[in-house]
């Protein structure tokens, strides 16, 4: 199945979906070396977003989060792609600078449709998600 979405940062990526159902702040809440989420009480605490298709509603918190996304990429710990309900400035800035494919505003509610571990193909050049 194909879902249309808005392209924030171009590129293609394929991987397993990893879904967080709450807003995520990258600064202070993830290890930039491993991609492991370290935020206390986060439902995904201890899991790595490395090579995943990381799906969460929107970013939050410090603007330094953009730099963390960039560091994840440099350290080889970045997700293959990011999908948001609505991407805000911090995540958009980080994804564009790090050249990580990023999409938002999918036509279907992706947080409800996709399950953890589903394999997704993200084509941010065309603004498409293939489930």
């Amino acid at each position: 199945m194909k879902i249309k979405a808005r392209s924030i940062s171009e590129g293609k990526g394929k991987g397993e979906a990893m879904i967080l159902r709450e807003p995520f702040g990258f600064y202070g809440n993830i290890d930039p070396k491993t991609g492991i989420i370290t935020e206390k009480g986060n439902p995904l605490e201890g899991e790595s977003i490395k090579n995943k298709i990381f799906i969460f509603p929107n970013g939050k918190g410090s603007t330094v989060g953009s730099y963390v996304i960039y560091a994840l990429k440099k350290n080889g710990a970045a997700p293959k792609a990011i999908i948001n309900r609505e991407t805000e400035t911090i995540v958009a800035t980080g994804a564009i600078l790090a050249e990580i494919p990023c999409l938002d505003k999918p036509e279907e509610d992706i947080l409800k449709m996709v399950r953890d571990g589903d394999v997704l193909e993200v084509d941010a050049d065309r603004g498409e998600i293939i489930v």
Partner: protein
Amino acid sequence: MYLTREEEGMLSGKEGPVVAKCMKLLVRLGEIYGADRMVKIGSSQAAGVSYKSIGEPGLEFLRGFAKEGARVRVPTFLNPAGMDLRNWKNFGISEKFAKKQKDIIDAFKEMDVITTCSCTPYLSGNLPRYGEHLAWSESSAVAFANSVIGARTNREGGPSALAAAVTGRTSNYGLHLEDNRKPDFLIKVETGLKDGDFGALGYLVGKTLKNGVPYFSGIGDCTTDDLKGLGAAMAASGAIALYHVENKTPEAKSYRDETKNLERIEFSVEDLKRSYDELSDCDAPNLITIGCPHASVSEIGFLTRKLEGKKLKKDLWVFTSRAAKVWADEMGYTKIIEESGAKMIFDTCMVVSPLEELDFECIGTNSGKAAKYLPGFCKKKVFFADIDTLIEKGLK
């Protein structure tokens, strides 16, 4: 979004990959916020300078960016660093922190950024014009440039301010547009204000409004330094990036007739007291901090006259820019302040320096912004008061 031929060229890589990446970032942000086109900017000011704030990820980004060939094309200044860049050893800064902080400054220098580390660029040689478009980051400087000067800037993140500096442009949305500069609340000030009162007023208004554009009436005599403190507090307790003050700020008169229809908030002498109470959770400061935003030369002169011939029993630190230092030294202020036992610190401030590592329990300040940020950023208790009370406490 409409792009000129030159901008299209930048985007497609005619001026190299770094310019293309910066342009792509600005165009995407513009699309997210519904911009119709880009505007040329007169200057930029980048936040995210302190190693304490940006850490290793930020340093790596800046180094990489400099190495890829990023160079700014408009005057670009910096926010405060995490330490006094010359005299850091005297303030308990570790060798490791100092090394990393200097690496950050060097990366900026490589990009031709002017490494004036100050939250008051407008007092340090980066003075915008009325109506000029800017890409500034520091929230208090954004509020000052928009409100007191009438320039136009959104509150940029570190990377977007740099991208704007590298391309000389930013996307035309938010406060770049006249429509978004109209006031939406009328704040009737019903009490006289002096010194720390402006921070107290700003704290409460920012906290109540969250964002939006307040229009103040009833503010009598005030200095530019008072407005600097007012805007800083509002930008810290809320996300206010523009305000108007009747008879004081340049855009206020064009909105005067519309204020009748605005939602009204009154600020009484009781509100002022409530604000002081909310901002304080201790009353015996063992360190007093002045200069958030960075003290102007006149504020330093004022403090000098208060401290002349006195001996402080508590620590008192004055934070300011290296530009103000030149005149503080020249006027003999630095000498008198230091003779009283106080210290002058440059390039940094109490919020972005690693103050939490130092052994002070209760920090005194006359800044609404510092009072709001110190508990969260530095894990400190705060005593918020006017300058006379602070000095009195410092002498005891």
